[in-house]
């Protein structure tokens, strides 16, 4: 358990940035905190780094309590590495000086630190840029210097605050692979902050969805997509519609639901009980079928490899999202079969 958060809170004025949050992050895990802006995810990272004090609760790193009532270990004594959104490269030092700094801070001489730093710089393919200034590098190169500096600190815990947010979209995909390789190389427990669900899905072992200072759900990316706990996670991740329904019968791993008086479906469920419930219908749960329910196309948009239509079926409270291999015109009638769905956790 290399990062343990126990009931931590942080308030600004009257609002909770982080609200009584608990979680444990296993050693070596790539753990992503995903949430909309203002949900408190950066504050959480800063609390773990020691850059922000706790109002309540405690934090342990490698089973050593570093923050708690009456205790606040300074960031420089925590041994965590941080990759900042702005990269925070020191403009007055050359690239090698930036990477060598943590080694020097650990007590090495300046010359020894630079030799050692060179090794880390080579591991991110920037060996020939050692004497450049950060200002002379491209965004992607700066990012890699920040990673090399993190490697040089030999930290077993690495915190990353939206490190890809400042990159051009075409660079981001390349840097995602770089991140995966970095994590494999360093083997460090990684706490990664992002608002981009695609990034979170691509990189993580575990994803925590955060809202208003709390974790809504912690799960592996595919579980999060296929088996969300609640309506917020269901609508925040992926596409689809959440509908009110009535569970009429249950079986292990599945449930029969009534969506409207003339529409019954069978959906996957963890533990469903008879009574009111919410069901998530993703585009994959619906397919075209001439003998299916008829629906009216409201709008249709191209999504790169398919068309996505919003379709009103009967008197359902919300239009459904359907993937189509062709462009449908508004007001066109489609026939849909329901092949699945996911019953959200009932209260």
């Amino acid at each position, binding site marked *: *358990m290399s990062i*343990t958060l*126990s009931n931590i809170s942080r308030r600004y004025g009257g609002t909770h940035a982080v609200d009584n949050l*608990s979680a*444990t992050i*296993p050693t*070596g*895990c*790539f*753990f992503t905190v995903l949430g909309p802006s203002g949900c408190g995810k950066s504050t959480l990272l800063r609390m773990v*780094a*020691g*850059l922000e004090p706790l109002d309540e609760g*405690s934090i*342990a790193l490698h*089973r*050593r*309590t*570093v923050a*708690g009532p009456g*205790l606040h*270990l*300074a*960031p*420089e*004594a*925590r*041994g*965590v*590495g*941080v990759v*900042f*959104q*702005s990269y*925070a*490269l*020191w*403009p*007055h030092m050359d690239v090698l000086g930036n990477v060598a*700094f*943590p080694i020097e*801070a*650990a007590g090495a001489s300046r010359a020894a630190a630079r030799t050692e730093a060179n090794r880390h710089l080579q591991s991110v393919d920037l060996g020939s840029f050692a004497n450049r200034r950060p200002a002379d590098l491209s965004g992607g190169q700066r990012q890699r210097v920040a990673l090399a*500096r993190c490697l040089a*600190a*030999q*930290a*077993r815990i690495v*915190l990353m605050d939206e490190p890809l947010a400042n990159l051009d979209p075409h660079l981001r995909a390349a840097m995602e692979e770089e991140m995966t390789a970095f*994590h*494999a*190389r*360093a*083997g460090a427990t990684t706490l990664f902050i992002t608002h981009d669900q695609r990034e979170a899905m691509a990189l993580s*072992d*575990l994803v925590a969805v955060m809202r208003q200072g709390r974790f809504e759900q*912690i*799960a*592996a990316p595919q579980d999060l997509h296929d088996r969300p706990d609640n309506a917020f996670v269901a609508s925040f991740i992926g596409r689809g519609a959440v509908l009110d329904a009535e569970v009429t019968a249950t079986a292990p791993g599945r449930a029969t639901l009534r969506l409207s008086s003339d529409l019954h479906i069978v959906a996957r469920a963890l533990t469903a009980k008879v009574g009111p419930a919410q069901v998530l219908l993703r585009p994959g749960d619906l397919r075209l079928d001439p003998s299916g329910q008829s629906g009216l196309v409201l709008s249709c948009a191209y999504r790169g490899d398919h068309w996505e239509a919003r379709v009103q079926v009967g008197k359902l409270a919300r239009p459904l999202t359907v993937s189509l291999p062709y462009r449908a015109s508004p007001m066109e009638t489609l026939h849909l079969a329901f092949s699945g769905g996911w019953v959200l956790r009932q209260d």
Partner: protein
Amino acid sequence: MKPQTRPVSPKCSVADQPVPDDLRAAPARWSGLRHFAKEPLLLAIVVLAAVALFVVPLGAVGRLAFFATGGGVEAFSAALSNRSVQRALWHSLESAALAAALAVLLGGGLGLLIGLTDIRGRVALSFAILMLLMIPPHVTAIAWMQMLGPSSVLLQMLGAAPPLGSTNPLYSREGVIALLALQQVPIVYLTLRAALRAFPRDLAEAARVSGAGPWLLLRRVILPVMGPAFLAGYALAFVSALGNFGVPALLGIPGRYVTLPVLMWQRLASSGPSVLADLAVLATLIGAVAVVAVWGQMRLSRAMSVALIGAAQQPLRLRLGRARPFVEAGLWTLLMLLVVAPMLAMLATAVVPTYGVPLGPDTVTFRHFHEVIFTQSVTARAFANSAGLALAAGIGVATLALAVGALLRGPLSAGVRSVTMLAEIAYAVPGLVISIAFIIAFIKPLPVLGISLYGTHAIILGAYLSAFLAIGLKPVGVAFAALDPALQEAARVSGAGFWRRLWRIDLPLIAPAAASGAVLVMLTAWNEVTLSSILWTRGTETLGTVIFNYEDGGYSTLASAMSIISVLATLALMLVLHWFGRNLPPGIIPWRG
């Protein structure tokens, strides 16, 4: 920590995560002493310096004014019922109020013209306007006296000199006010330029597309929005004029227009330290006026900053069209008349054998320059003293400002904020109040050491540090504010402790701004006369006091020669600063941006 040998990036799951119940508390990592040796130690040093520079001297004035025998209400009512004090206080208020008003008219006009139009050479114009502030008041007064007096070499050549024997027209209330106003023009100009830079451009553009011409735009949009800036500029100019000593001393004494600082100086010069209790009362009086004015100004600028929140944009550039060359020529002519012509008059005085002899090819002499540089020991000493004191004050202020700036970003910022406030107060109160405070506080031998600072260089240096710290704090504050806080945090999480961060991260990044602050302080210290006018003794003469005493004693040619050298040195320092500032964020070098 060694790299792990186990296979990396395991699939981790939520299921195998029991919350451990054996979270050990971290061992106490720091003993009390090791913890203290970081920020608290630096804070302690800064607070000690602040106590010595601000609390002890200003406290000594207050104690003497309020709690000495015969002090308190009695002393204040006695002072206020004294005829000459009443008159001097009135003269101070009147001259400062009128001079500030004139400065707002001229400085405000220049600010609007240069800040809002597509006029060329803005930096050069600003530099020339700043010269009005950088040339010290006593030198300005001497130069204008020589340009407009009956012995004026310049007017004699033009055949327009007043008849010999007539009084210099500047020896009057009007003369004092006019020259005070001239000195405050740059202060208003800078305030207005800063406000115009923050003026959201789309406000003006919205008015233009609504059909407003330039005049309607100025009258209905820009001037109302700039109102608070004008008021702030007025308050700053008022406070600065209130504390001025060089102009009223050189023009007001012969013109029988004595202001309060001049009265205080006269009393100390004629009676010596026995009148310190009286002076403490007068110092408290005028200090209170200055502090109230600055307090009002701070409230105004706070209101202003609320009114003018908007993204940084390209500033507005109204096109002058065909009038542009004429406006530019007019501006440069005006600045030539205000800045260059008096300097030429002074140069003319410096190169004639005796004051009053007409300047011609056969009368030119460089004897006076030779005399002040090589012959007179007192002038050589003054140059050395002023250069040394200015250098020491610059370095001292920059060091203190760096420490204050670094602490302001840390967890102990509350403790150091009071230091910045004290520095602002010391900067606002008239220089004579600071020097009297230093005499009162340090004339008695220091405890333990048993030596008195009075009559040493140290007391003058202390007064410089006290009065000029605010000048050095501003650029450092601007530079720290412009710095990404993540740079500091990155150093922290890299394992760097407080001193390493200060030395390796803060210092190199802030150094250019701190150095600019140091040069600004050096300029101020090199040119000042107010503080040293009553702190100097034989051996610790400064440039300002020697120029002042030469002029006062009728040695105008020597005073002019020294002034010319000091102005050239000032110009050289300003050019150094100009070069320093090329990569600095705007707001640090006054005439840039």
